[in-house]
């Protein structure tokens, strides 16, 4: 039935049986790969976060960690390889072609599928970005293998299979998913879901060029133009050191200003839990949690947020989580480090004022500058 690949794998009964008996044709699949996402010459930090995870998996399996770098011919490719080595890759496969200058599904999925079929990794990781999600779904379908999206934890079992853990049921529970009888085992993780590994300047690796036959005249989708975001449109939520967020405990849309006020005094970014976006109180680019941004700040203040799992998975990487909630049994107190059981609407103005007093000697007079 598949147009993408005429010969479906010899499925037979029990394609997804729990029996961990890897079919013969997959037994030579080896090594852990990370797709190195590059747009306009810049490597997306999620690729380095994945290299950190990939290194862990590769060491446990006793195999190599490879990056896959693709783009237009030029110095960006070499630079992306060097960065990948610094973050833990042993080697990089490079695919250079003018057609790959900007992301389009067709050439990218063809190129990635070709290099996977030629060099046969056992694990392939991609960032769950707009690019990575667009690409991963296509490649997994062509290869007819399993793909687990938005993993919050990646591990290797004793029998060497990839255990990919992600939120499920709308983020109310976690589940661990395996691709037992197919290769590569594919998974994506969202930016900031994994910690940034240490960068080792000057760490070296091998570059393995890979040629793919791609010609612009064969590619149907054309890029007419690219409109870069203005800086003012970008939120730095995912990478902020201090984040203040509000939830349903704020009781009304007008009270979200209290969160913004505290964020302004702290020089922090502000965010919110999912219901506030669903109610239209706050734009969706401020949503923190499984379907929004994943954050890893040094300090996270959650005001009036109950702490459902879908929120928890987005903030667990924070160094210090402070919860303000009237309900002392709210799940947020299960993973916050500090808490105060009080009404956020009454408490936030006082907290803002207290921080303002404490920090005012240090506040630069921006008008003067």
């Amino acid at each position: 039935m598949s147009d993408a690949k005429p010969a479906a794998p010899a499925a037979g009964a029990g394609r997804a049986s729990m029996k961990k008996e890897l079919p013969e044709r997959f037994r030579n699949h080896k090594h852990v790969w990370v797709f190195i996402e590059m747009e306009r010459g810049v490597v997306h930090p999620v690729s380095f976060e994945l290299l950190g995870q990939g290194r862990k998996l590769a060491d446990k399996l006793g195999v190599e960690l490879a990056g896959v770098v693709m783009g237009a011919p030029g110095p960006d490719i070499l630079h992306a390889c060097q960065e990948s080595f610094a973050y833990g890759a042993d080697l990089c496969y490079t695919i250079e072609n003018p057609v790959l200058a900007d992301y389009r599904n067709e050439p990218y999925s063809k190129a990635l599928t070709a290099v996977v079929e030629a060099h046969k990794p056992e694990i392939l990781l991609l960032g769950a970005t707009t690019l990575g999600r667009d690409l991963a779904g296509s490649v997994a379908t062509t290869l007819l293998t399993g793909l687990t999206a938005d993993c919050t934890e990646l591990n290797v079992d004793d029998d060497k299979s990839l255990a990919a853990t992600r939120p499920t049921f709308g983020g109310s529970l976690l589940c661990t998913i395996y691709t037992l009888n197919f290769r590569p085992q594919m998974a994506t993780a969202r930016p900031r879901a994994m910690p940034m590994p240490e960068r080792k300047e000057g760490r070296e690796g091998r570059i393995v060029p890979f040629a793919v036959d791609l010609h612009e005249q064969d590619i149907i989708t054309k890029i007419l133009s690219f409109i870069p975001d203005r800086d003012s449109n970008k939120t730095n939520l995912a990478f902020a050191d201090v984040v203040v967020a509000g939830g349903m405990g704020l009781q009304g849309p007008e009270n979200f200003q209290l969160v913004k006020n505290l964020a302004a005094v702290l020089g922090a970014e502000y965010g919110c839990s999912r219901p506030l976006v669903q109610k239209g109180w706050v734009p969706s680019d401020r949503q923190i949690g499984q379907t929004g941004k994943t954050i890893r700040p040094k300090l996270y203040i959650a005001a009036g947020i109950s702490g459902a799992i879908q929120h928890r998975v987005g903030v667990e990487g924070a160094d210090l989580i402070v919860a303000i909630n009237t309900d002392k049994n709210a799940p947020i107190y299960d993973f916050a480090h500090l808490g105060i059981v009080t009404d956020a609407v009454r408490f936030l103005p006082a907290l803002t004022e207290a921080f303002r007093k404490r920090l005012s000697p240090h506040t630069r007079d921006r008008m003067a500058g």
Partner: protein
Amino acid sequence: MHFVVCIKQVPDSAQIRVHPVTNTIMRQGVPTIINPYDLFSLEEALRWRDKVGGEVTVLTMGPPMASDSLRKALTIGADRAVLLTDRFFAGSDTLATSFALSAALKKIGETFGKIDIVFCGKQTIDGDTAQVGPGVAKRLSLEQITYVSAINEVNGEDGTVTLERRSEGGVQVLKTNLPAMITMLEGSNTVRRGRIDDALRAARAEIVSWNAKEAGIEDVTMCGLRGSPTVVKKVFAPSPRAEKAALVEVGATPAASAEALIEAVLAKSPKIEDDLIKLASGF
């Protein structure tokens, strides 16, 4: 032109509760809705049908009760609804789902007219994978454009579509050929409320229902649990931290509580003060 919108009936996740003792989902009484992201794709299909003419067919795969969502889509304005339902589909992962949906889409094209655009939701709110749309596109060799923030032109004569796609750091303006598979970004349009005559029509409308065989699927081992390469081996609630949050005593006034909380923050993580001072001073 023929627009087909793939939708999914999902539990209203805002109302899902987890049993405190058994850690299982309590499904009883949880209302179902059309996956909210699908509505933006449905609206876009309806807009272009209204503009350039043609029909909108909605398709879903699910249990018989998923016809509720199809009927809802008809009340919003879709012309035809197809339900793909069969016990063989139970337990499908995204690969098996895209296999079944592609078969049904082929059959829809043969039965009701060639498809120009397949719309899918950006992702669902229950699975959150964003994989089914790309899977369908690949299997049917459709041009794939995801995260679309605006469709600028649908040209039936030369069979092209011009649109804007959200990417990291900006928007790509793209032109591609039909047939295509498009997923719309949330907020890219305002979903209409159905008109009364659509509601009346929907109430009487007959929903086309196909099982695997009727959808043209011969090899049912490609469907459901058997056709799914991924295996969910464990579902669990995350373990609480060994220690629960240290609670700061509420003071006589909010101001006193605030001071106490700041002291507790600094005691727990003294380095934070330097970071806050740096941020406050604008570095």
